[in-house]
């Protein structure tokens, strides 16, 4: 393993995953360095879950994929010792008691810390003596997240981990993610539908649309490359003439229109509007929209 690959946790080149004739993931290439929080965005069926499965050896891909220097399909067990994966949060065994699950995981996972898990569980409303089947969905999610957070992994792959959690619990999860996980050596890949909420946490974003990678970029670069101009309705036609990626509304009233450009908009337009940071949602819609979808449907 070269020094460079120690810093790059995931390398994908021309990665595809096929289900029969259907390309769930289509010729995707990207790198994930250490110390990042990567958001994986896409509509339902875009290939997010499949991509994540390929990264943990549960789906066999074509092309090149290296995760923590290993081939996930061949070295799945070794990989899962240093990477942790939440495929879905409603999947804990229903017959088990929470404390027994902690004990089982200590035996089954070399980097799991039972003390850490119990400490994290104490912060939630989940009791150690509770049986999973008596817990509400939100509590199952909290328990699962606490268990996974107690694993000392270099890569965390989370498929919609906050589904079913209320706002306070989501906040607590994000706090825990930042405070426990962001040491500059670990990376997190997280897919979620609550893009607005998580946008400020992300350092990078991967946008998938129908299996294809539409954008692989850091948030810093988004600020530099994409420009949104908010403007009055009066200049809407002039804005449209410059062929922006997307035209949308950011607020009520006449000044609430906006146009999103890839690259610097023409100078005369910049004078007519006010420069803004495009939100991730707007950028996503702009790059993946189908004519029948509007902004609220994401």
């Amino acid at each position, binding site marked *: 393993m070269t020094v460079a690959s120690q810093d790059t946790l995931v390398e994908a080149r021309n990665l595809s995953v096929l*289900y029969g004739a259907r390309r*769930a993931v289509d010729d995707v290439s990207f790198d994930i360095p250490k110390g990042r929080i990567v958001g994986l965005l896409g509509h*339902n*069926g*875009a*290939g*997010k*879950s*499949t991509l994540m*499965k390929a990264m*943990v050896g*549960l*789906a*066999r891909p074509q092309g090149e994929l290296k995760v923590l220097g290993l081939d996930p399909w061949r070295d*799945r*067990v*070794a*990989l*899962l*010792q240093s990477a*942790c*994966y*939440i*495929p*879905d949060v*409603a*999947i*804990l*065994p*229903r*017959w*088990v*008691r929470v404390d*027994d699950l902690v*004990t*089982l*995981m*200590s*035996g*089954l*996972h*070399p980097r799991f810390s039972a003390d850490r898990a119990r400490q994290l569980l104490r912060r939630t409303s989940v009791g150690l003596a509770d049986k999973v089947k008596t817990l509400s969905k939100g509590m199952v999610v909290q328990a*699962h997240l606490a268990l996974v957070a107690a694993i000392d992994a270099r890569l965390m792959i989370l498929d919609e981990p906050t589904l079913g959690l209320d706002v306070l619990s989501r906040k607590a999860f994000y706090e825990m993610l930042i405070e426990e996980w962001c040491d500059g050596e670990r990376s997190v890949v997280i897919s979620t539908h609550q893009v607005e909420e998580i946008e400020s946490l992300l350092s990078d974003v991967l946008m998938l649309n129908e299996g294809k990678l539409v954008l692989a970029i850091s948030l810093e670069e988004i600020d530099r490359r994409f420009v949104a101009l908010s403007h009055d309705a009066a200049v809407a036609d002039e804005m449209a003439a410059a062929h922006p990626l997307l035209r949308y509304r950011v607020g009520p009233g006449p000044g609430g229109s906006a146009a999103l450009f890839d690259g610097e908009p023409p100078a005369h337009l910049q004078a007519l509007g006010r420069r803004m940071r495009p939100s991730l949602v707007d950028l996503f819609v702009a790059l993946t929209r189908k004519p029948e979808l509007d902004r609220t449907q994401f």
Partner: protein
Amino acid sequence: MTHFLPLIRREWLQHRFGWSLLALLPLALGLLVAGFGQVEFDGDSPLPVDGALPVMLAFAVVAGATAIVFIVMSLTSLIIVSGLARRDHADRSIEFWLSLPLSHGESLAVPLLVHLVLVPVAALLVGLLGGYAISIVLVARMAGPAAWLELPWGALLPATLAIVARLAAGLPLALLWLSPLIMLTVLSTALFRRWGIVLLAVAIGLGSTVLERLFGQPMLSQLLGRLLRNAGQALASASGTGLTLRSDDDPLVALQGVPGWALADLSAALGALASPLTLGALVVAAACFALLVNWRQRSSKAAD
């Protein structure tokens, strides 16, 4: 395999209540019957302790209890094993297990080991101890409280232990003969869910009819029959002669003969291994296991 013990522990955590209930219920019933049931003897006075009846009864009770608990738990295991491939699919916890660093092989092999080997052996021990407990109660009722201790243990102990040992030693042999059927069932429920067993039965039925027509002899059913018979004999009566204890024989002599019978029976069962059927059975079972590992690997990929 460092995951051996935790995986065994998983089975225990999941099944401990059912196991305890099924193992202890027959014993509890036995205790009740022994303590309060109708036992008819000639005369009301305590029978002489060195008479034939108490010791033969004690032996029968111990052997019977052992056998009953063994059979109940083995049947339970067979039922659990038949649904093993799909058991975590209903609550989707299979995805949880797949997210842990466990190989497909050990995730399938350890539960099979637990249910097919460890559980029946544990059942033998539980049955043995329970049988002793019941025999204490029974003999006390028949011949007074201290009578149990005065039973001819020199002959009784080896005889009861020999029965347990015979069954324990015969278990792996029986499993060998049954392995193709068991693994085919697991594989077929993996592939076809609840219909798996039905389909397997139909396939076997059709297969044997077709082969019979083709080759003129009932090959498949003969094969299966031999497998089942060998399995049964692996546990008892491999030498063809059952364990007969006639009541007019001196009980001590009869009991003393039990270990010898058990040993001879076991050697006969071992002798039955020298047959191409053994290899065939192992090959089919191993092939099914390999296919199961492959199935588990492929089924982890689900549509997005």
